[in-house]
Structure formats: C-alpha cells, structure tokens
C-alpha cells in the first residue's frame, strides 16, 4: 500500500474531542488488541501448565490442552482482524509513516536514548503520537517483527502440534516434532518476557494510565505543554 504524506494524512480524518483528545486507536484495533492480550495471557498460563504439570496443578493436562487449543484458534482468528484492518485501511501508515531508513534509525536511536535516560529526567518523548503516525520507531520495528514473523511462526508450529498426524509430512520437512515443539517453546519464552515488558512500557506514557486509557477508549490526551 502506498505510503501517504504525513502532512496529507494529518489533514484527512483526525478526530479531536473538545478536550483536545486525538482518536488514535479505532475500534477494530482496540477489539483486536484486548482479545489478543487476553488470549496471550491464557495461552501463556495454559502453556506453562501443559509444560510443567509436575510443578503446577491448577488445571488437568487434558483441560489445559483443550483450553490452549480453543483459545489459540480464537487468537488466530483475531489476528486476521488486525491484518485485515491494516491491509484494507489507510491506517497502515502507523507502521510506515515514511520509508526513510536513515531517518528511521536516527529516530530509533533518539527513542532509545529517551527510554534509557531522558525519561528519568522528565523529558518529553521524542515521538509525538498521531493517528497516522502512532508508533515510535522502536515500537514500529518491534511490532512488525512480532506480528509478521514471530506470531505467525507460533501459529504455524501450534497448528502442527494440534494435529500431528494431519501435518505429518510438514513436520517431517521441518525436522520432526521435537524441532517444531522447540521452536514453539522458544517463541513462548520470547513472549513470556515480551508481555511483561510490554505491559510495563505501556505505563510509561505521560501518566501511567495514559496508554491504557488510549487502548480502551481510542483517544489519547494531547501533551500538556
């Protein structure tokens, strides 16, 4: 999809409340995000139960597996809400406001400096959230890798393990069920820390509640100058 000029998109469809709030997260994004979040928490917990039945006994193995499978399919279906929304709307610019690698890495470095130092001094985030330019460069690259690579890998390996016999030839092609399971667990290991860090960073807005509120209502308060 062609990238739009930020100046053009800024003029197009901004919604602003009387309180000066910006409409950052449309309804499909919010629905997808919270379903995805809840699904992931359940998948992580049931995944831990499945793998560590000798340590935890909250659910029986059978219940944990069945819950894991059903929730996983719900999360897969939900993924297509995200994919469909961004493929068929002009909001895809939140990931690529402009394709300028040099500028992108400069901004990413600036953002990393902010998180590691500037934020403690009470500086403003170098990235100003806009409806069509929502993510800072660090978020943008991370979410694209996660949503276009890591999450699909988890879906594919999970589906293969859901019906081993049906995907027998595919499993053999990738090196056997041990390999498939190991990849699935490695991605789980990544998401385990990612989810915790993601939740923490969600609290690093202007106020700790700013981004959470934004994800519920869709509106984000403008910075107080």
């Amino acid at each position, binding site marked *: 999809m062609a990238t739009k000029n930020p100046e053009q998109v800024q003029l197009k469809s901004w919604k602003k409340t009387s309180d000066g709030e910006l409409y950052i997260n449309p309804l499909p994004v919010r629905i997808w995000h919270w379903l995805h979040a809840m699904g992931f928490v359940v998948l992580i917990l049931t995944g831990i139960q499945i793998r560590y039945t000798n340590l935890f006994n909250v659910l029986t193995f059978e219940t944990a597996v*069945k819950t894991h499978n059903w929730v996983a399919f719900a999360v897969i279906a939900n993924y297509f809400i995200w994919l469909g929304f961004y493929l068929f709307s002009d909001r895809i610019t939140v990931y690529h406001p402009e394709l300028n690698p040099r500028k992108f890495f400069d901004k990413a470095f600036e953002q990393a400096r902010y998180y590691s130092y500037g934020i*403690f001094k009470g500086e403003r985030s170098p990235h100003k959230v806009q409806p069509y330019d929502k993510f800072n460069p660090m978020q943008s690259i991370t979410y694209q890798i996660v949503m276009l690579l890591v999450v699909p890998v988890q879906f594919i390996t999970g589906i293969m*393990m859901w019906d081993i016999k049906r995907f027998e030839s595919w499993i053999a092609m990738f090196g*056997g069920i041990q390999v498939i399971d190991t990849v699935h667990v490695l991605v789980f290991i990544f998401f385990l820390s990612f989810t915790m*860090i993601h939740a923490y960073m969600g609290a690093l807005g202007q106020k700790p509640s700013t981004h959470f509120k934004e994800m519920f209502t869709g509106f984000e308060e403008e910075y107080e100058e």
Partner: protein
Amino acid sequence: MTASTRVSGAMGNTRPVLPSLIIFLIFCAIFNDRLYAQPVADPAAELAITKNTPADLGTQLEANLKQNNKCLKCHSREKIKTLESGEELSLQVHRDDFTSSAHGEIACVSCHEAIGSRRHPSKKTNITISSRRDYSVEMNQSCRSCHDKKSTQYEGSIHFSMVGQGSEKAPVCTDCHSAHAVETMTVYQPETGFPCKKCHENIFIAYAESVHGTARISGNVIRDKHIQAPICSDCHRSHEVTAVEIGDTLRSQCFGCHENVPLLHSQWLPNAGTHLDIVSCAVCHAPFAKHRFDLHLYDNIAQVPVNQQESYKLFQQQLQDIEVGGNVDPLAVWKLIEESNETSLPANISLRGRMEVRSGVWAHQIASKSFAVRTCDSCHQAGNRQALDVTVSVPQQDGRIQRFETDREELDSVGAMKSISEFFAIGGNKNRLLDILVLLSLIIGVAIPVGHFTLGQMIKEKLDRGEQ
C-alpha cells in the same frame, strides 16, 4: 576242424543240461513271487484318503480301520523304545483316544509313512531315533501331507523360527494338537486355555481375568449384550503366530472388532490419531499395567518398523556392536542411522518412540472401558515418566525383539532433538536447556521493568536533591 564236426560236438553235450533245467524250473515255481513280483507299493499311498465317491470312501475307511486294528493290536499295549538320547519313548497308543480323535478314521501309516506293514522295524531293522524332540520335529512333515496350508502358516510363525533355532520349548504340531488324541477345533476354548496355556500360563490367567476372558467364559455376554469375545487365536492367529512385534499388527487386531475406536477417541482425545499410533492399547486399557517407553527403528520410506528383512541385516549387526553392557545410547543409535543412511542402508531410517506395557501379562489385563485410564499424566508429566523403563529395541531375525536399556535422561537432553526427533510427549520429555531459557525469560521479564523503574526513581531522587 570242419563246421559239421563242431555241430555234432555240441549236440553230443545235451544230456547233462536237462537235470539243471528241471531244477531251475522248480526253483522258479517256488520263489516266483519273490523274483518277479512288482515293487511293493507305498502302503501310505495305498491307504491315503483320496477324493472318491461315498462308496469308495466307505471302502477306504473300512480298509483304514482294518489296517489300524492290526497296528493297535500291538500298540495299544504298553511298549517302550529307548532312544539314542537315553530317553524312553512310549509306543503305546490308547485305542479309545485315537479312535475318538479327529484322526480316528485315518490310517496309522498315513502319518507313519516310514513304517509300512512290510517295512515295520524289527530287532534287526531297528529305526534309530535320536530324541523325542527330534522325532516330534521330524513328524511335523507328516502333518503337511494333509494340512499343507496350515503347515505353511506355521512355518511363518515365531514358534517355527524358535524350533529352527534349536529351542526345546517352542511347539511343534503335536505339542498343541497331541500326537494321537488329535482334537477338533471346538476343544480350543478359553475356559481351559488349551493349548496356549501349557506354555503361556501367566498370560492366560491375565486374559481369563480380563474383559475379554470374563466375557468369553460367561457366554460372550457384556452388559447384557451378546458379543463374540476373542480367544488367543483371534488376536495372535492359531498357526502363523507372530512375535510381539513393533508396529500395528496387534493394534489392527483390536481395530478388527473395535472398528469405531479412532472415531470415539477423536471425540475427546487431542491428537487421537497420533496417540493411537504411538501408544499401545494396553497402556490405557490395562489400568494397573506398568509402562515402558520404547525407541525403535522406523523405515520412513516403507513406513513400517524395521524388521528382520535381509536388507537390514548389516545394520542390525552394527546395532549389536554399539551395545555396551546391555545398554544402548539413543544418540549413538542415531549417529549410526545417520552414517548408515549415507552409506550402506537402503532406506531412510529414524528412531521413533512408542509407549508400551512392560510385559505380556499386563498386555492381556484389558479392563472394561469404564476402568480405562483417561488421565494424561502418566505420559505427559515429567515426574511420572521418571518411573518408566526406557529401552531401545532391535528386531531379531526370528521377529522377536531384543531390548536394550537406555538412560532415560537422554530423552530430556538437547541431543534428543536429533536422535528422537520423531517423538515428543509434551510435558513428558523436556529439553533441559529450554527450561533454563524459560527461567531466564521470566527473570528478564521481571528484572527489566523493576530495574528500569528503580533506576528512574534513583535518578529522580538524585535530580531532586540537586535542585534542592
């Protein structure tokens, strides 16, 4: 000398020849039957059952009984023959047992072909028999003359293989059917366990107490329904008895009656098809059985477990070579497979896992469906799995399985990803390296937020102090 002289000379010698001719003719008259008789036909062939008309059969039967009476005249009495081995062989045939047997109307010489009426051994022409066992094995061939199909089936059995290897216990025809009191098929009933129980008593007891055995004994009734409960031969066959092998031979026997098993299991069991492939029925349906995790060699091209075929012989020999003190390391097996796949082995072989019960006795303790194990923990819980035996099995030439113990820790090692890449029980075997990474991820997930927050607070305090 002229020609006339020679003739007259010959005529002059006729008188002394005449008495010799007369004596010769008398001799011929007396011993005519011995000198010019046709070769004696094989009595067995004479008396063998042929496809004749009922009238012919009647005549044949009459001849057989007449002939048998001659045999039984002596052999119904106690007679002992001392064999080369020093054993004593009773030559007695109990008349009633024989005449009421399935072979009661068949001539003795049909089986004992070597002992025709005119070739009966005497003290001078004694037949030497090395041992009772050798004689029984030798007599197997007599059965073939009428029971060709069954004999061929038997020759494909584990029993026949063991006989060939010199086993003294493996059964020949007469061990199951007896020599002279041959019973009809109706005798082979589970109530008695005959004839399998004679060698497999423990297994028969387990069977008799199982859902199959009790149903059969109680008249084939389960939950007020008539069912045809299996006896030994229904699953193991009667003559082509195969070794308890790796693969789905026995599973397909179960499915023969329980044909809706895949459907029923798929309604509640995740990955039902895979479970049915790698977990033997008895693991769940014999609830008190102890389990064993067995690694076996699988031919990925033929899609069958490696068996005793000629093409695997060299490979099997190599497997024997890597055995150390009864133990085999799966990783060593895998390395051997890798090397063999590149060089000598005409197949793509991998090492696959299978959950089994530890003994044949447990395999027969099949309980009613309501007692079947439905919890997953025995396989999918690492703690429980520690109680398992883990073996590497290698098929032998006769179809039997040789099992080597192995280190169960191997299943949890990083190397297992290669050595047993085709098998994985979630929660059951866990890669220890991944466990460490899970812990590390958890620590990172907590440490980064806590560290970042703490650092922020410290910097803020420092800045606040600086402002003051």
